[in-house]
């Protein structure tokens, strides 16, 4: 019962979030960058529903604009990571030999770094900015995609239908696309979903320590950072942005778990 509730809540929340992101320009009550010097650090009011920050900018509009950035990064980075990771993982498992050894060793090395640390390193190398942020997060997620897809491919590679595909004359790409990928897709879809949550969190964290989106552009991490500097004067901006992050990450995790159950044929039969 509780599971059901959580899943429904997550779906509704993510649906709403998607609408907000798509229609951000229409929904925003104010320009997220416009400063109202007369209403700085104001509490909630009819004009500013969630109040304003220290520079007098509308918190609600900033959170909506920040959602856009968080979601773009949150979805783009795992997708980039998935494409790179899955191609490397399946290649490694499918061909074996030195290709596999190199890829696994590199993966092991990357796995020994904390994703956050890896993100910090890459942003430090490439410099802050939106694209670099996406690359950094994607890079941090690639190793887990390599591992999972390599493991699943190794299992599927043993199946007679893969031999069948080769023996009937399918080329390697065809065999992988038609027979390997569909059969390893379940766990990968689940992982991508859960990683969306993680990517949003990483983005927030990197922005929080100043390595992500650059002010005045709002992102959830930015908003929390700016809010924290005046947490005792006006706690609301940090609080609402933090809540947005938490709920989004939670929703993606719940959705990932639900997908896992749904895609697992053994559990589905019960």
């Amino acid at each position: 019962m509780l599971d059901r509730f959580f899943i429904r809540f997550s779906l509704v929340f993510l649906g709403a979030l998607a609408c907000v992101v798509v229609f951000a320009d229409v929904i925003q009550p104010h320009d997220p960058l416009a400063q109202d010097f007369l209403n700085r650090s104001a509490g909630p009011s009819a004009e500013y529903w969630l109040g304003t920050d220290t520079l007098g900018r509308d918190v609600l509009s900033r959170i909506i604009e920040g959602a856009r950035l968080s979601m773009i990064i949150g979805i783009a980075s795992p997708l980039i990571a998935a494409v790179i990771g899955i191609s490397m993982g399946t290649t490694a498992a499918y061909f074996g030999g030195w290709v596999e050894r190199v890829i696994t060793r590199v993966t092991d090395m990357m796995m020994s770094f904390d994703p956050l640390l890896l993100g910090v390193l890459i942003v430090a190398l490439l410099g802050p900015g939106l694209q670099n942020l996406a690359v950094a997060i994607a890079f941090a997620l690639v190793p887990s995609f390599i591992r999972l897809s390599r493991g699943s491919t190794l299992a599927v590679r043993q199946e007679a239908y893969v031999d069948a595909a080769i023996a009937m004359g399918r080329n390697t790409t065809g065999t992988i696309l038609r027979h390997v990928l569909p059969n390893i897709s379940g766990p990968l879809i689940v992982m991508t979903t859960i990683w969306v949550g993680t990517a949003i969190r990483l983005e927030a964290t990197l922005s929080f320590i100043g390595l992500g989106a650059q002010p005045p552009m709002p992102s959830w991490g930015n908003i929390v950072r700016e809010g924290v500097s005046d947490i005792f004067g006006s706690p609301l901006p940090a609080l609402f942005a933090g809540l947005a992050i938490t709920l989004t990450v939670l929703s993606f995790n719940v959705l990932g778990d639900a997908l896992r159950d749904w895609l697992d044929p053994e559990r589905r039969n019960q």
Partner: protein
Amino acid sequence: MRRRGPTGGVLGEGCVVTEEPILKLERLQKVFGGKIHAVDGVDLEVRKRETLALVGESGCGKSTVARLALRLTAPTAGTIAFEGRDITKLPQWKLKSIRRRLQFVFQDPYSSLDPRVTAGASITEPMFVHGLVGFGAKRKAKAGELMEKVGLSARHVDQWPRQFSGGQRQRLGIIRAFSVEPHLIVADEPVSALDVSVRSQVINLLQDLQETVGTAYLFISHDMATVKHIADRVAVMYLGRIMETAPKETFFSAPHHPYSQALLSAVPSSHPRRKRQRVVLPGDPPSPAKTPSGCRFHPRCPMAVDRCRNEVPELRAIGKDHQVACHFAAPNPLNVNELLPAGSTATA
């Protein structure tokens, strides 16, 4: 000299063999992990329209021969020639043109069909890969046509493999192989996973389609009764080597190699009053990781002498189309059944 031993002869359907064999394996070897000699110098040929049964017990390397013949794995040494062309070292992309003429049926009907591909798409896949069928509705119509050929309803083209029984899946696997009218089908134990009452249907289907299309089979099996029913020629394998090849009639009436004799006498009788006199072989086949010296059958052979322990017997012709790898092989051999007292059991 391309052939060892006499090959001119009359086969099953009155087809005179003077032409190139479809598949010719020479001195074929496959070593796994540097020490497991799964296949260790196999010479074999499959001729047009014939069924060559490759028999042997588990671990003898017969399935590895199937995988080598299909080039699913590369041999360590030796050559594989398909219709006169050496395909031993061809890269996969160059093999594609060969593969239309070289198809397969695997043992396990449950794992040889991709669970995420519908029945119709699965059975038209070889045609699709080789550009012999269109897209969409055309492909589906073809799939339905194929399914009806093997006694399945065309209405089921969109069903998933798991919705079919084992026997039905094996029919799908068989029509998938036949859809491109191949010249050779490598069939690895195609009926051993099936229920007894379904098995005979599938054997008949295999024979009917063979007759219509004119395909040859490399039929791998451990079941001597099925082999007797379906084969034209028989090759016996033991620990990675061919021990004997012979036309079916010769093989079942007068097997020469002591192992062939033991293998045949081990088959359970088909009537309680016709219990056969049995050569029960002592012990188990040794592992392919440590093959015995000399003739690899010698530790279990009732006829073994010193020469067998030291010298590897070559496969040599002893009669029309009949080759045996045994030092004792002669046109009129001793039968080990006559050497042993009646009802003798294992003296391990």
